[in-house]
């Protein structure tokens, strides 16, 4: 006997279910299909090509009128279901009730709209159905149309790319630090961002939306937390979906995050079944299409009285976002005992990361080249033991089971016309010729062929070719890499950051082929410094890449307490400051107060929690951070000079104060200490400082590269100038030259030993060059010359200095 089946929702899951049902037994059910959208089933995944203009709506319809008619489906499209009456077994639509023997709920999901002020303005839409798509398509008709997309997940990026393809000016605002953080890790997210930026889409990460601004009831702009205003004609919110459960809930069915179903897709009512994005199975909800199709098959079998059970499978996502190939499978984030294998090919924009647990592959992320995705997915699904092929696993199936992957053997096998250096088009044969012509070092080869002279990433390959040609005569250079994350030296990294205009840490990791996901405690502070020194405006300083002292703006002591050193310009202070320091020492129970060698007062033994309040107190008296903890300008030590001293030739104290006011707050490769002595008796000990000035009757003698630490060095003369203004100009220019060129953690004397004092003198003796250095220094200071204490004494920042929670209090009760 034919039974009555009512289906609520004509989406991809229920559509596939009906196909299975009619194929197996076309006469088992008489079907009524409700759909709130005024149309039948279409391929929702293909809305993006419709948006970008690659497809039309007609091409993505999966079930047309003829199909529904041929299968005898009573279509109630454009009609909402008001109620499910389970007792009477009736589905009540807006235009009348329909009885059922079996009911299938396939209501799908609702887009989540962030309840920002203004979210109900006209022109604020989700991206879910054809209507939304058409709104976005319509926007391109307007000249200079602007759109903002909130949400840097798959849907948001597709919306952005589709509109951009139609000529709309699009900005994507994403709250997380990188795009598609659920599918991609940071490095892949960086590559994706770069690809989108190349297409003219603006991307703002770590951006919090505050309010949607409107005019006459229509959206006008999005206002961010930092005050940025992004004008727009349309605002698309694509921040996620939620199972649509309202109907099932009001019908009294068991509902959690989604409608609860068992393995047979039956809800808490045996005559009501459910599938698709609205269901929850064993605690999981679903968003990808593959498991929905599995559910569709199971549900159709259940309806026909056949044995079937839904078993969720490991799902891989292979995506194409605006022409960029992405693949992710398995679990590549959380868990214990995991190891990463990372492969990067900067020139091709390829990134691959495999996650292993013990002998098994459990996750994979790929960007740019996803050809081996299916193979990796297979290894993950089958839980195969990969320990045998671990060494070459990341190169994919083509590399397995063959001869051993000795890199030298691979290089030896290359033909003479194989390209080694892509930047300069140098092939293997040319390098071999150079070696035969007498080149014995990498520098020789570089000079003759230019190989490895540009981006430098082929240096290893060039060396291997040389080693093969020279045999035992070749001595591999012993330049020390930054750390185990890279083979590049500090000098290489600095050069490449400038040459390739790398402006973020993920950019450095990816383009320079870092072997770890995000560096280590050795390279991170160095790379952070290089980026902020070279790109002061574009790069944002990363506190998490700084050593504790620079992050907390105080010196950590061996017992975990901190020392606080207020700045005293040129060593000058006054009774008011001294009182404030004394009061702070009393108030916060400072156990030790000491005068430092740099003419400052050090308050030792302060608890971390007390730092922000203590800084606020000191700020109030006009005292700012003395940066006694930083790789930056520390102190300018002075003597009293001609103001008081009978031998003083110039105002050494005044010049010291001027220099300190100019230089404070700047970050440098290592700490920088200055001193100004008023006469050659040198009471300020200027001759053992990084930069020391000794005043004489006729002017100022400036020397650099002194030290009085592990090494004792006397300054080397740089220049003698007649005026204070010139002394200041030369000093600033020297500091900037050091900032731009030195290796991280090289004090000036070490750096000068490498580049030579002559080179330093020559660089600085050019007046234009000096002026340019000063200008670049001043530009950087517009960002970095601000008191870190004042910033951190703000309540929002100060909270970071407190424990997140205290679980000892309640336990003691």
């Amino acid at each position, binding site marked *: 006997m034919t039974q009555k089946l009512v289906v609520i929702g004509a989406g991809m899951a229920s559509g596939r279910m009906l196909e299975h049902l009619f194929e197996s037994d076309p006469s088992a059910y008489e079907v009524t299909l409700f759909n709130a959208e005024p149309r039948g089933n279409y391929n929702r995944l293909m809305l993006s090509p419709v948006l970008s203009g690659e497809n039309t709506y007609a091409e993505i319809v999966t079930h047309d009128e003829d199909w529904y008619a041929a299968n005898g489906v009573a279509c109630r499209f454009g009609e909402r279901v008001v109620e499910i009456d389970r007792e009477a077994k009736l589905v009540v639509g807006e235009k009348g009730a329909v009885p059922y023997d079996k009911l299938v709920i396939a209501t799908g999901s609702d887009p989540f709209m962030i309840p920002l002020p203004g979210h109900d303005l006209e022109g604020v839409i989700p991206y879910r159905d054809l209507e939304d798509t058409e709104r976005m398509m319509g926007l391109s008709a307007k000249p200079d149309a602007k759109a903002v997309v909130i949400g840097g997940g798959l849907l948001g990026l597709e919306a952005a790319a589709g509109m951009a393809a139609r000529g709309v000016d699009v900005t994507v605002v994403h709250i997380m630090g990188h795009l598609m953080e659920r599918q991609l890790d940071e490095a892949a997210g960086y590559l994706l961002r770069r690809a989108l930026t190349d297409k003219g889409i603006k991307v703002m990460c770590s951006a919090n939306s505050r309010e949607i601004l409107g005019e006459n009831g229509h959206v006008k702009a999005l206002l961010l937390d930092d005050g940025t205003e992004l004008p727009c004609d349309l605002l698309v919110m694509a921040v996620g979906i939620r199972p649509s459960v309202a109907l099932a809930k009001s019908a009294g069915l068991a509902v959690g995050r989604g409608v609860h179903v068992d393995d047979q897709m039956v809800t808490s009512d045996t005559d009501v079944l459910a599938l698709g994005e609205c269901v929850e199975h064993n605690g999981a909800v679903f968003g990808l299409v593959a498991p929905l199709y599995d559910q569709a098959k199971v549900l159709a079998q259940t309806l026909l009285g056949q044995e079937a059970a839904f078993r969720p499978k490991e799902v891989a996502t292979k995506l194409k976002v605006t022409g960029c190939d992405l693949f992710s499978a398995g679990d590549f984030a959380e868990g214990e005992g995991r190891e990463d294998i990372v492969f990067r090919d900067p020139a091709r924009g390829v990134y691959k990361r495999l996650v292993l647990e013990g002998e098994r592959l459990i996750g994979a992320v790929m960007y740019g080249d996803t050809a081996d995705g299916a193979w990796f997915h297979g290894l993950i699904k089958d839980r195969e033991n990969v320990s045998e092929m671990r060494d070459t696993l990341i190169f994919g199936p083509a590399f397995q089971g063959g001869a051993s992957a000795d890199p030298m053997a691979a290089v030896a096998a290359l033909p003479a016309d194989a390209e080694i250096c892509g930047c300069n088009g140098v092939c293997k044969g040319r390098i071999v010729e150079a070696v035969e012509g007498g080149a014995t070092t990498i520098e020789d080869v570089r000079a003759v062929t230019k190989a490895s002279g540009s981006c430098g990433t082929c240096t290893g390959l060039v060396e291997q070719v040389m080693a093969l040609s020279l045999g035992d005569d070749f001595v591999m250079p012993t330049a020390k890499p930054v750390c185990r994350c890279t083979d590049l030296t500090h000098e290489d990294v600095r050069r490449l950051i400038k040459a390739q205009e790398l402006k973020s840490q993920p950019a450095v990791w990816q383009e320079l082929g870092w072997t770890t996901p995000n560096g280590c405690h050795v390279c991170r502070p160095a790379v952070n410094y290089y980026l902020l020194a070279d790109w002061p405006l574009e790069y944002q300083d990363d506190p*998490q890449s700084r050593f504790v002292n620079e992050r907390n703006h105080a010196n950590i002591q061996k017992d975990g307490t901190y020392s606080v050193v207020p700045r005293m310009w040129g060593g000058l202070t006054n009774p008011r400051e001294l009182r404030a320091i004394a009061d702070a020492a009393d108030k916060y129970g400072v156990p030790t107060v000491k005068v430092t060698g740099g003419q400052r007062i050090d308050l030792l033994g302060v608890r971390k929690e007390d730092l922000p309040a203590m800084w606020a107190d000191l700020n109030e008296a006009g005292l700012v951070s003395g940066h006694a903890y930083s790789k930056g300008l520390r102190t300018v030590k002075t003597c009293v000079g001609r103001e008081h001293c009978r031998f003083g030739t110039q105002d050494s104290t005044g010049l010291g104060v001027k220099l300190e006011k100019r230089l404070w707050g700047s970050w440098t490769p290592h700490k920088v200490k200055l001193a100004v002595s008023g006469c050659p008796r040198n009471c300020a000990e200027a001759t053992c400082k990084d930069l020391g000035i000794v005043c004489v009757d006729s002017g100022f003698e400036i020397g650099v590269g002194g030290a009085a630490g592990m090494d004792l060095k006397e300054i080397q003369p740089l220049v003698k100038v007649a005026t204070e203004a010139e002394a200041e100009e030369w000093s600033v220019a020297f500091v900037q030259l050091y900032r731009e060129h030195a290796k991280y953690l090289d004090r000036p004397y070490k750096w000068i030993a490498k580049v030579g004092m002559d080179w330093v003198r020559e660089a600085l003796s050019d007046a234009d060059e000096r002026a340019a250095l000063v200008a670049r220094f001043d530009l950087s200071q517009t960002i970095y010359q601000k008191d870190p204490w004042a910033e951190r004494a703000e309540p929002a920042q100060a909270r970071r200095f407190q*424990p997140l929670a205290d679980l000892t209090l309640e336990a003691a009760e």
Partner: protein
Amino acid sequence: MNWIDVGALDDIPLRGARLVKTPVGCVALFRTGENEVFAASDRCPHKGGPLSEGIVHGRAVTCPLHNWVFSLETGEAQGADEGSIPTYPLRVENGRLLLDGDAVGRRAAA
């Protein structure tokens, strides 16, 4: 397990750490990825350095005092150094940080 909500995920900066005081001592919560966190003792077994102040990289942290590196997954010191720190169950749910109260010595609220 006795999951206690100790704060929001976003209270910890990416590749940073925050501290929770517990009956077993200070516990550091590390955020190694957008959605990845670990909990471990804050105290370095070498000289007692505060690990929550170290640089977080991969799934490891470097002690700020003498650069010992610990795996946050196993608690074991890496490289040539020998020692380990206790680790505690911590998970993220709906953007909240849930720490296992039993593991850090706090009895369930009656």
